[in-house]
């Protein structure tokens, strides 16, 4: 990789340094603070008894089953909703900032007038987003393991790694869809709309549609379902779940790169 190509990645990566660190710190803090209260819930049967009064569908929809076990505690408080959503939200924000936002504001014009192809410029931004999302996931993983050790939350590291890998891939898929939208249209509103719909709407579809017999089959359409329906904190994760997020993510990124090379660039 030559200096020019490195700059096409590191330049955008530097541009979101501050927001990347803020996302990273926020997620790590949530993980640490949540695990810190685990000793108060460990072995507590009263919560489990309270859950028995709720409909089983609602308990499953909100990931509340086995709340007093390490897997149930992490699922209910972190990995059924918060952490995947926050990492996906970071991906949406980064894409909006580096691709559609930069184009819409006119800041991309200076870069596009330099001797680099449009595709290389866009791909550099995609790699920068992916690297930041990966870095946030890695730091989250380290904080999770550190907190688990500190507060004696015992859970299989393979299950935890699988859950965090799926969280990363869900964010990658969400970010890739945003990249495709940015490449096709370059409108920040479209990128944010599509990204947030997938992140929030996908979560709601996966959680609530199974409560309705009519809507239940549609829950399969949500990437959240592909990622977490197998309860990766408890069960082994089937390889197709990784592929179902990773491969379309790569294809969507490629679509964004291709489309960005073929259309007019918005003026400031």
């Amino acid at each position: 990789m030559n200096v020019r190509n490195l700059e096409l990645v590191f330049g955008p990566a530097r541009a979101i340094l501050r927001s990347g660190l803020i996302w990273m710190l926020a997620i790590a803090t949530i993980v640490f603070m949540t695990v810190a209260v685990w000793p108060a819930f460990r072995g507590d049967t009263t919560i489990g008894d309270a859950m028995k009064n709720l409909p089983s569908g609602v308990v499953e929809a909100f990931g509340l089953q086995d709340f007093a076990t390490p897997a149930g505690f992490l699922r209910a408080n972190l990995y059924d909703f918060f952490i995947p959503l926050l990492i996906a939200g970071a991906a949406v924000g980064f894409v909006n900032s580096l691709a559609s936002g930069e184009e819409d504001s006119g800041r991309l014009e200076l870069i596009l007038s330099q001797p680099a192809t449009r595709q290389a410029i866009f791909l550099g931004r995609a790699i920068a987003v992916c690297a930041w999302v990966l870095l946030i996931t890695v730091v989250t993983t380290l904080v999770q393991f550190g907190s688990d050790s500190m507060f004696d939350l015992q859970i299989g590291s393979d299950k935890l790694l699988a859950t965090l890998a799926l969280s990363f891939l869900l964010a990658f898929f969400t970010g890739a869809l945003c990249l495709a939208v940015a490449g096709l249209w370059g409108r920040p509103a479209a990128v944010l709309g599509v990204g947030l719909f997938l992140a929030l709407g996908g979560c709601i579809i996966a959680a609530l549609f199974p409560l309705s017999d009519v809507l239940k089959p549609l829950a399969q359409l949500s990437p959240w379902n592909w990622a977490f329906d197998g309860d990766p904190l408890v069960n082994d994760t089937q390889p197709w779940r990784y592929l179902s997020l990773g491969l379309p993510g790569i294809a969507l990124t490629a679509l964004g790169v291709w489309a960005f090379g073929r259309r007019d660039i918005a003026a400031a």
Partner: protein
Amino acid sequence: MEAKVPSATRPAAGPPTRARKSGEVILKAEGLVKHYGSVKAVQGIDFELRRGEVLGCLGPNGAGKSTTIRCILDLLRPTAGHIEVFGLDPRHDGVAIRSRLTYVPGELRLPERLTGRQLTDSIGRLRGGLDNSRRDDLAARLKLDLNRRTRQLSSGNRRKLALLLAFLWPAELLILDEPTNGLDPLMQHEFVCLLRETRDAGTTVFLSSHVLSEVQRTADRVLVLRSGKIVAQGTVSELRNRTSQRVEVWFDGGVPAGLGKVPGLADGRKDDHYFTASLTGSIRPLLAFLAGKPVNSMLIEEPDLEDAFLDLYEEQQ
């Protein structure tokens, strides 16, 4: 002025020199059309820019100047027509073309968190090298502090930074879109000096501007756009000749008969020893008529490009 870029990092195209083939067409637009939906921004324009020339592009807001430039840079794809830069197609050979040109955007937006030095370093990495001493020289000439973040800079200082980026690398073609917007008169003068030095070094310049005096002082030829069409093109003096200028003549004695019928004169008015009229085109027939006549004094207002420009627009409207 040629920057001394280390040979290992010098762009492959090399700097412009007078030794390069003069008169070679390096930018050509043929039937260029660009529509944004129902908006016809450019409606079939043709022009050429030869090596070493400074082509001024004039026109009011919405005339199609920036759209033309953005087509040249491949930021926009023409609806119809054809553009060639250095004999290459911007769509397919964009990298080769952009490595040989520099550009100042009209609507200037810079990364806000970078200092001027960091921004020039970053662009330097994209362009394959950077001459630090030339950067410092240019910053001193433009009175620009490179250690301040761009968001802390005034609009004038941001414009200076964009100009520094345009003049920092040895380019064969310099494309400037409203380059002096926001600059004070002293800096406008410095810009003209830089432009002349660059032109003297053999760089070709496409200058889009609202500042007529700037174009008048620097351009070899002028292209006037209105509503996406070329309404005039030619040298500055050719455009000047299209406009009328006020002539006043005082005679020792009466006004000679037949003066009002001299070709080019119109709206003649005489009063004892004094005659005034508007003159369009060459002054030679008038001078030939006055030779041998008892002329006491004579005053001819110098027409400028602004008059020509306004006349052109009045004609079109």
